[in-house]
């Protein structure tokens, strides 16, 4: 990759670390420790399910919150504070700045998720006393969660390129929630008639399909995930994110800085 993009990404990661974003790991660790000790005392069979469900849902929520709240400020904060002036006075193309900021946050989320995942696996080991082949689905579920973060980050970036930070956050959360129920939306579209059907179908397919990216239930029951789905989801999430980042770049390229 282009060295300026890497430099900007690395600096974005450094900013997140210095702004103590990774401190959320402390809360996560407490949650996991408390949760697994508690289930360890009450039940025998469903411990594994509870730990995986609780752990992965927490990984997902913590990450989405970080992706949205940092994502909306990635570029808009730099415009607002005018830290961007001296960056764009360099041989940095505007798209390089956007892409660098995007990767910086993705790297932050990957590191954060990696550390959280270790916590989930530790908790699993603690309640089940061993890790099995079925636990591989947990890893797949975590991978899908990271793909969700990539999409959410790209959307937060896109929304913040044309609306205020508050509105961007609301939009990003709304899309995340609607996308989580993407299958229902598609089902609804299929049931409606005429013009509504066309409109609803377009809307349903424009929304990111976070339902397909959620295999927490399978992971909790140690059911395997088809290899096809892994491939399909990877391509889908990357294309979706690419489109959103490209949209943000198109808007930003024309923008007069204040």
């Amino acid at each position, binding site marked *: 990759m282009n060295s*300026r993009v890497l430099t900007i990404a690395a600096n974005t990661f450094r900013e997140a670390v210095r702004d103590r974003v990774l401190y959320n790991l402390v809360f996560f660790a407490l949650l996991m420790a408390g949760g697994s000790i508690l289930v360890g005392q009450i039940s025998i069979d469903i411990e594994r399910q509870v730990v995986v469900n609780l752990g992965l849902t927490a990984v997902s929520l913590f990450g989405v919150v970080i992706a949205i709240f940092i994502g909306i400020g990635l570029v808009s904060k730099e415009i607002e504070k005018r830290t961007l002036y001296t960056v*764009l006075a360099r*041989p*940095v193309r505007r798209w390089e700045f956007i892409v660098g900021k995007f990767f910086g946050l993705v790297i932050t989320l990957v590191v954060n998720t990696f550390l959280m995942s270790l916590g989930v696996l530790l908790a699993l080991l603690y309640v089940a006393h061993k890790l099995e082949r079925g636990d591989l689905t947990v890893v797949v579920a975590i991978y899908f969660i990271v793909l969700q973060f990539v999409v959410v980050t790209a959307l937060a970036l896109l929304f913040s390129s044309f609306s205020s930070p508050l509105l961007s956050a609301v939009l990003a959360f709304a899309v995340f929630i609607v996308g989580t129920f993407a299958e229902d939306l598609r089902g609804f579209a299929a049931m409606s008639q005429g013009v509504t059907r066309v409109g609803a179908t377009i809307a349903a397919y424009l929304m990111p399909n976070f339902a397909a990216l959620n295999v927490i239930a399978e992971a909790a029951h140690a059911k395997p995930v088809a290899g096809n789905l892994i491939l399909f989801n990877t391509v889908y999430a990357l294309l979706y994110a690419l489109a959103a980042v490209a949209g943000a770049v198109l808007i930003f390229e024309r923008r007069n800085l204040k």
Partner: protein
Amino acid sequence: MPAIEILGLEKKYEVGFLRKTEKVALKPFELAVQEGEIFGYLGPNGAGKTTTLKLLMGLIFPTAGSARLLGRHWRDPDVKTEIGFLPEQPYFYDYLTATELLEYYGELSGMDPTAQRLRVPEVLERVGMTAAASTQLRKFSKGMLQRVGIAQAIIHDPKLVILDEPMSGLDPMGRLEVRDIIHSLKDEGKTVFFSTHILSDAETLCDRVAVLNEGELRAIGVVADLTAQVGGKVEVVWQGEKAKPAVEALGAECRTTASLVRAVLPEAKLDAALDAIRQARERLVSVTPVRATLEDYFLQKLGRKPLEEVETR
């Protein structure tokens, strides 16, 4: 080859929410800054100085016109490896230390890593920030930020340095140091283009200046030529108080010290003043021409003083 050529750049802003009106922040004009010059870009608040510099750096887009930088198309991003820019009231990543910030900008400018390692402490020394090299910028004062701002503008040893009010926020020592830096840049063969509304800085530093007012280019030239256009003034000193009202009536400012009265008045009124003094039979001490300053130029040509900021000298 000129370092900067402004070819009819124009910037209009839409203002107002319901009833949109156009505000012209910069009207088209041609301006060429030669290589190796220290060029001052002067004008009162709101004249359009910052607008011009932001246009040149590609931070905002013009409604018409274009420019050339170092002989290349201004939109060529690679030309910026040779340009350093200090924005007005600069603000930087406050979670970085001064050294980290300069390294970051060095990398973005495509500097060679080994050259950079040597260069960063050298530049920090040059702006008097060695002691704060490893302090996070969030702990910096305004003047310290300004110094780091100058450091980041020259870290990559650019051929052309564009500075928006480089002296603002600096104490008298700091201003002297920045003047020295600008001079030394010229000695190294660089071009410096800076905006200011502190005229004494422009007078002591610049080879040439351009004067901007309300978005319009009003004059370009050597400082001495501009001030020569302004009607000269003379200082008259005499002994005694009786002629004072008559001289004051000619529009002179009089100040009395001990038994001497000093009056500064336009050259054209000199004869009348001398008559008044003779009639009062008072002793004339001296008549000296007063060199017109850029400030006089501003007052006479633009009808307003360029500085809202109090000069600290």
